[in-house]
């Protein structure tokens, strides 16, 4: 029994080292924390979300993720420092929220519960909400512009937060809408939908995190439902699901979150 425990511990340490190496390589901070809401009041959607990384004691501003936290639930934070000027002594008083801003940033709401804490503004201004026009669909009554030929095989990816198959608002529908227009314009021979889940465990903030295998399937299926409603026929659709893909390439992408995705490939 003791030998088993030792082997498990060594395994965990190995995993931790591997994870730490990944973090060092791409400067991504990954930690689990209990989020705190700071009620800055600079108009609608202006509140701040903060999370303290236990290992460093640093407080980060995790407001700018696509998905915001839920008070009372732990969050998995994956992000990079917006700018690193004084990494050891960041002047938090100069920040909008009182935390070191992370961007790019992916926040995943975990099932694990934790205390709900709200802070007053305490002099922090927060950020005025500005809607990025790139994440807003045209109203339904705007005539649809279909992409012109030629049509070549093409792949899109839709990312998900950890443990979730929820199609995130002001992100997923932009991609799905574009795919739908391609499908209606080009009538592809095949629409291949491949869902992925990252089931290999990794240790983050002393927790072992791994997605359930079924998530790969449910992610693929929800995207297939969406594509059917956008014009894909059953004859076109090929739905499959796999585990533990490689990250997507690209300097701005966060590697680990990009593995939690669905790929949609149109071929002719």
């Amino acid at each position, binding site marked *: 029994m003791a030998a088993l425990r030792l082997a498990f511990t060594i395994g965990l340490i190995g995993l931790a080292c591997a994870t730490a190496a990944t973090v060092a390589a791409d400067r991504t901070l990954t930690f689990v924390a209990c989020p705190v*809401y700071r*009620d800055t*009041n600079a*108009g*609608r*959607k*202006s*509140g701040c*979300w903060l999370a303290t990384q236990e290992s460093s004691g640093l407080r980060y501003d995790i407001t700018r993720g*696509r*998905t*915001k*936290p*839920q*008070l009372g639930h732990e969050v998995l934070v994956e992000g990079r420092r917006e700018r690193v000027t004084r990494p050891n002594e960041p002047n938090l008083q100069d920040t909008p929220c009182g935390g070191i801003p992370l961007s790019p940033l992916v926040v995943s709401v975990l099932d694990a519960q934790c205390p709900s804490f*709200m802070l007053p503004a305490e002099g922090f201004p927060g950020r005025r909400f500005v809607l990025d026009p790139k994440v807003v*669909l045209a*109203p*339904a*009554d705007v005539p649809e512009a279909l992409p012109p030929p030629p049509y070549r095989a093409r792949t899109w990816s839709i990312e998900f937060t950890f443990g979730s198959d*929820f*199609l*995130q*608002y*002001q992100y*997923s*529908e932009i991609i*799905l*809408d574009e795919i*739908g227009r391609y499908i209606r314009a080009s009538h592809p021979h095949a629409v291949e939908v491949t869902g992925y889940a990252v089931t290999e465990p990794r240790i983050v903030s002393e927790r072992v995190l791994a997605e359930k295998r079924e998530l790969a399937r449910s992610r693929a299926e*929800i995207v297939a*439902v*969406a594509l059917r*409603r*956008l014009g894909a026929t059953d004859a076109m659709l090929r739905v499959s699901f796999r585990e533990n893909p490689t990250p997507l390439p690209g300097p701005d992408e966060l590697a680990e979150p990009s593995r939690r995705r669905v790929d949609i490939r149109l071929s002719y």
Partner: protein
Amino acid sequence: MASEARDVTTPVLTPLRCMAFALTVTALALARLAHSADSAGRPAPSWWAADSGRVFPQRVSYPDATGTVTVTHLGGPVDTRGHPFFTVLGRNGRACITCHQPADGMSVSVDTIQARWRATAGKDPLFASVDGSNCPSLPQGAASSHSLLLERGVFRIARPWPPRTPDGGAITPQFTIEVLRDPTGCNLDPIYGLKSARPMVSVFRRPRPVGNLKYVTSYGYLFEPKNGLPLPIDPTTGLRYSGNLLADQRARTLEEQARDALASHLQREGPLSASAMQRLIDFESKIYVAQSADRIGGSLTASGAQGGPDALAAAKPAVLKGPGHLQWAEFDSWMQAPGDAGSTEAERAFRASVARGVKLFRDRTFLISDSAGLNSMNFGNPTRDSCNFCHNMTRTGMDVAPGQVDLGTTNEPFADPAPDLPLFKLTCAPGFPPQPFLGTVVYTHDPGFALTTGKCADIGKITIQDMRGLAARAPYFSNGSARTLRGVIDYYDRRYSIGLSEQDKEDLTNLMSVL
């Protein structure tokens, strides 16, 4: 209505002003009389009975709690003889018009319900045992058997359990349902209850108005942000479902709504002919209803305002509020100039109050928390926003997306105490996402949208409804829990700890009264 906030900063009434005010009121009264008079000039009764044979006018106005409600039919006057909206089509003596009265903004108010009880000793088809009583098995002659309709204005809605798809297919629910309290007796009834041969869940809801339906059936965007999916497509029309019909979205189209209502509320056996169905939908689709005058503020089109049903009928539906499309812009002109040379001080003061209400509705932010359908999206919990975050469709205050949201009006711990309503305990099965904020065990007197989908995540969600013509159709919320418009504001203030001042509450109440 005595408790309604109608006091505006009261001006000093000089004899001259008093006389001018009296003349205005008289003129308004005469105008109402003219609108609701028959061809011989006699005032028409406000109650529209089934099979009355009357002509439904192109435009008709009635006094209501705070002024005048006006209903207009874009197709011109309608001969109601044999018309499916006005004709008894089932076996309980009701027609659609029975519960969708023009004087009540095409719904039916609790004041009207009580008046019908008094006038008919409870014999009006309005009180049909199927849903106009607390339970059909109760003695129907006693007022106590109709207490929920008489006191809250709610009708019994019997939903099949387990839920079924609109096509009758089986849905395996993610939760069990247990009756903890059954003051009507209907949920434990051997014939109508949850354990009967045809298991049903009886919930009690206000009737939604038949009017302004282009706003209810249209959609602003192709996607439903609450689940990330494109809106589903109606195979018969190729159009997408708006998802905004009825409190629990159990009908996706006006035809499905009509079939549901005919079978349940009118107790019709067998379908309506295709031509009659089309006639019914055509009529409903051309009805517009809105408040048109206020007792204090005067005409709602005065001084550049665009209240009343005409601007509503002319405008484009499903427009999301935003720059260039501000919510309740109908009353923006009153922000700068609440009156003209002929306006009384009382009119100016009231209109200024409405204008302040518009600004509050748009701009007063507060922390919205623990509301499934809102905070369960990626906005976070809590999120700071204003009333028009959810009431975001211009002209009606509905949601441009399917508007199923849990405000807490039907669920513990947020719902007002309602010992007269049933209380259910819903327990979510393992392996399914729980109600996002209420957990795996939820106590509710109306599971709402979850009775349509069978999903735990949808427990307590109720579709946001049209806010026009409110003053004519008290009480409010799906369960009639707010007796007055002020009661609606008080609920929100309490639920979200908004911290509205007395003046704020009065201004918001006055805004809602002129919609």
